[in-house]
């Protein structure tokens, strides 16, 4: 089974949500990862950061999830930031797919995620 872990940190009464995803994301667990992300985002959220630095594998199933997340957050006017270091598997996929058009990409986490 493909394993991914999602850790959520919520600051400022739910306004800033930061996720750290580890492990691998493929077609077998992308839906579960998406579910874990969405459940931790409350209606109070203003910014969401997803740290993919420690993700060892991500492909089009993960992209589908990220596009879907970006679309939902856009509708709710919540800013999305993806933390993707330059030499990471997630960075490669995100750049090949042009995801920079729907989310802000940063090479490293920038705490505190300022509003």
């Amino acid at each position, binding site marked *: 089974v493909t394993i991914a872990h999602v850790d959520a940190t919520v600051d400022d009464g739910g306004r800033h949500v930061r996720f750290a995803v580890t492990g691998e994301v493929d077609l077998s667990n992308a839906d579960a990862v998406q579910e874990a992300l969405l459940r931790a985002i409350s209606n109070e959220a203003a910014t969401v950061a997803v740290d993919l630095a420690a993700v060892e594998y991500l492909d089009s199933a993960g992209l*589908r999830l990220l596009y879907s997340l970006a679309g939902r957050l856009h509708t709710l006017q919540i800013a999305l930031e993806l933390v993707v270091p330059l*030499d990471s598997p997630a960075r*490669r996929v995100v750049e090949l797919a042009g995801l920079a058009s729907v989310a802000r990409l940063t090479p490293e986490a920038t705490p505190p995620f300022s509003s």
Partner: protein
Amino acid sequence: VAPNLGDVRAALRRWLAEAGASRADAIDILLAVGEATSNVVEHAYGPVGGDMTIRAELVGGDAVVTVADRGSWRAPRGTNRGRGSGLMAAASDDVRVERGPEGTTVTIRRRLDGRTGTTGTETGTTGTETGEVGS
């Protein structure tokens, strides 16, 4: 039986390490092969499933990986689908798809040269490669 693409990746990572692939090479090859194997899982067989054969070899300085199934090809369904073949082409130097009555074989070729990603040149190559995909 649920497909275990994680096992395929683990085996491929071991092979890539032995073949001397750099991190950037390995990321690309895992991605291209991951897309090819995901295609088999999602499109080749009905609910009963079927098998898939993956072979990796070093030809000159190239990693050549073939992914073969004995199913029938089916067009991608649903929203946000169909990015996989684009990624597969972008992450490799050459992708060939042979479809026949016996099944589908995808051959992925990627030079092991330790290139780093994020260059405009690679995007240029992608167009040509995409053209070669399909029968």
